[in-house]
């Protein structure tokens, strides 16, 4: 998947559904359309509860709605998983093997070559 530059696509999804910023603010449980504007202009990041409400409103997964942020998180987790994988190299046993498999998967490394 090509990496995205924009953190999210909240504005596009609101417009797709023909909703105004005030409509979305109301659905999010606020009467302040200005807050929605701040989200859409990348000035504020919605809290988790708000993000989940966006998922409900737009019927799009968080990974789709917040594509750029999701990819950032994915990349950072992969980098950390690689580090953790190196640290667990000396461990043996069934649980360690399972752990390495998990970390290799997160790091995007083929476990067979470990």
């Amino acid at each position, binding site marked *: 998947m090509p990496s*995205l530059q924009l953190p999210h696509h909240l504005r*596009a999804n609101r417009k797709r559904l023909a909703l105004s910023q005030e409509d979305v603010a109301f659905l999010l449980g606020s009467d302040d359309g200005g807050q929605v504007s701040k989200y859409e202009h*990348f000035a504020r990041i919605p809290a988790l509860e708000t993000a989940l409400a966006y998922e409900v409103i737009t019927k799009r997964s968080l990974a789709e709605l917040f594509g750029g942020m999701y990819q950032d998180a994915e990349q950072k987790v992969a980098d950390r998983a690689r580090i953790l994988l190196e640290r667990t190299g000396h461990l043996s046993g069934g649980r360690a093997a399972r752990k390495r498999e998990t970390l290799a998967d997160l790091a995007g490394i083929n476990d067979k070559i470990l």
Partner: protein
Amino acid sequence: MNRNRVNNPVVLAVALSTWGVGFAVIEGKDMLVDWGMTATKGDKNALAAFEIEKLIAQYRPSVFVMEDAHAKDSGRSQRIRSLAKRLCAVAVRANVQTAIMPRQEIRKSFFPDGSATKDALAAAVADIFPEELGRLLPRKRQAWMNEHFNLAVFEAVAAALAFRRAGK
């Protein structure tokens, strides 16, 4: 928020019309991120330049795309030509690369022979983004009707897509 990754750059395209400026923001190959018209009353050129400046600040596009308003066969008015220059200057000031595309090249991206009316082009674009643009598609223009102001939005989206399809 981290917005430094640019291997999937954002394209801002505009289409200039009598009514105002249609704009479209596309991320990646064909992800429509924003679209609409700028102000249509008062000092149109000044307001349009201001709005485009705001869009550039918001989306930080890598490329600014516009149809060539100075081509011999473009038939654009002096105001539109002057606006085209002004918007290019806005983009250059913001360090955004500008791409001026001939009308024919944009049309060819959707119709192999390059000949299509604005209505046909708008319908082709609405087919690509039915959820986003379907409800904005104006009725086919009759000889006695003015051009619908929404057509500029479709032209802007078409320019952005044509730029992307040309692999630029």
